[in-house]
């Protein structure tokens, strides 16, 4: 319901604009890994900070004033509201501009967008999270959501691989999970030249040797560069995973995030609306999926 004085000034472009970015302050910049910083944002408007809710796996459109707008997956869990954490790799023009910003600078946020992980379906099952490199960014939201609602899930396994120990995102918090008994946290690096790494060394798929996985009662959430999909998907299929229990988070060029601009279209689905979480069955039926 609009109040009388609001009716007079109502204009859909002013009052009901899905492209409207809301200003948010950078409250913290944490340099996890060179050029892979974690940005913590808080909406300038208090009511937005209090009411913004997302599902694990959803993304936002982030505006860096003067540079542009880009889709960024939300790395924080909805179970830890008030702020948004975004793991952003410095790869292009807009991320470059973001990296020039300082704490207390202001950016624009709209969203959340996308389907997110099907939490209602996953609950009550085992959960396997498999990530390589930057793939941990969207999976971290799911990880903490599951750990914060631990009673809703059976066994939880995390497999995460990075090139070297110093390349591992969220390293400290993930290392702290290794000793926990309510999650099987498996961390591996391809190589450890510094000889300081106390966890696994080897490619990501070797972690399957240390995990007990029952495909019939597990949902697998996979995210990473194409090489990760190639090896992990094959391994999951060999284990006998049904194709609709393998969940993938996809990256696409996006200009709107709301199913209009056309860039993220894959076959007849929009990554921004029907994705970014797709099942492997979707992937088989859509061209150019990975």
């Amino acid at each position: 319901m609009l109040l009388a004085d609001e009716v007079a000034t109502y204009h859909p472009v002013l009052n009901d604009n899905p492209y409207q970015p809301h200003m948010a302050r950078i409250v913290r910049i944490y340099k996890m890994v060179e050029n892979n910083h974690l940005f913590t944002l808080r909406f300038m408007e208090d009511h937005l900070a209090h009411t913004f809710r997302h599902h694990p796996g959803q993304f936002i459109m982030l505006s860096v004033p003067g540079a542009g707008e880009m889709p960024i997956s939300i790395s924080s869990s909805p179970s830890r509201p008030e702020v948004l954490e975004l793991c952003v790799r410095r790869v292009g023009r807009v991320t470059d501009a973001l990296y020039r910003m300082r704490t207390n600078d202001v950016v624009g946020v709209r969203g959340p967008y996308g389907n997110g992980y099907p939490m209602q379906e996953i609950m009550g099952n085992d959960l396997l999270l498999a990530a390589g490199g930057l793939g941990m960014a969207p999976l971290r939201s799911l990880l903490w959501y599951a750990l914060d609602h631990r009673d809703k899930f059976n066994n939880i396994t995390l497999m995460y691989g990075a090139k070297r120990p110093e390349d591992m995102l969220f390293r400290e918090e993930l290392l702290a999970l290794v000793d926990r008994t309510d999650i099987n946290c498996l961390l591996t690096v391809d190589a450890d030249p510094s000889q300081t790494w106390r966890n696994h060394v080897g490619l990501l798929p070797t972690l399957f040797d240390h995990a007990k996985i029952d495909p019939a009662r597990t949902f697998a959430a996979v995210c990473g560069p194409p090489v990760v999909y190639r090896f992990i998907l094959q391994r999951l299929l060999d284990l006998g995973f049904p194709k609709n229990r393998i969940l993938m988070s996809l990256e696409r060029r996006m200009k709107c995030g709301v199913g209009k601009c056309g860039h993220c279209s894959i076959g007849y689905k929009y990554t921004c609306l029907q994705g970014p979480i797709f099942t492997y069955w979707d992937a088989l039926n859509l061209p150019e999926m990975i």
Partner: protein
Amino acid sequence: MKILKLPKEKLDLFASVVQQFGELHAPVEQDGKYVFKRLTRWPDARLEYDRTILPPKKYFLPPRETLFRYRPGEGFVPHIEGLDQRIILFGVHACDVYAINILDRVFAGKYKDPYYQARRKNIAIIGIDCTPDKQCFCRSMRADFVDHGFDLFFYDTGDYYQALVGTALGDDMVLATGSLFEPVDTANIDDYKQRSRNKRRAFQLDVEIRDLPEIFEMEYESELWDELGRQCLSCGSCSMVCPTCYCYDVTDDVELGTRAGKRTRSWDSCLFANHALVASGENFRGPRASRIKFRFYHKQRGFVAEYGRPSCVGCGRCISACPVHIDVVQVIERLRSVEDVARR
């Protein structure tokens, strides 16, 4: 639906009266072709045109438009200038009205595009029927007639126009003219039926679109796509002239010497090399063949799954615009032909 008739000699009078509802735009001749343009005088209107270079989508989704202005401290302020301008588009063909109806569905949904919606609300459409030429295949695309999306629609039935009143605004236009419009009688209806029959017979192109999505799935690996990829210049002309292509790009520009700027959107094309390129350098549709395949695939297969019909209305503009003569009708015929399948 209210159906009336307007004697042809009274069209001029109607055109002058109707201008009280908005600025009058119609097809006018420009270098031997036609464009929708603001009329400076009614006699410039060419209602018997074949097709305009750009479709009427330019009114609803302008080639470039400012979405926001940005100022430090103020954030992104929506740009609403021009959105409330009242325009009457006079002489829109059925296929183009159909295309606007398709755009309506894209720009509606859970996230309504308020810029498009505002323009759609403020731009009236007076449609006019036409005689198909050698590039028209709107009948195959089920877009040779429209039953909604216009305020008034005129059928040329000899000495008079038969007018379909589509909206309350259309009705107001009719009422504003006093007694220019007359009721139709049985003979007029027969005139219309005859006109409809003649139009159907005038089509020279025919494309079968039933089960086309399935054929597209089966021919996904066809060598035809590589052939088209070698031919296509990726100029994007087909997207620009297409009445249903809606892809757009968004860019931010900073005003020199300040930290203020604006956010603009502009027409884009899936044929451009960077359409599916992400910042990491990965391009999901890098090769030209995969881009042109995507364009056909999205219109004739993907859109059907999403909205229940192809996003093509058979207006024939892409056939005229393509500098290397890629012809959508021929492409569909090639995909349907049995020889191609056997040759592989």
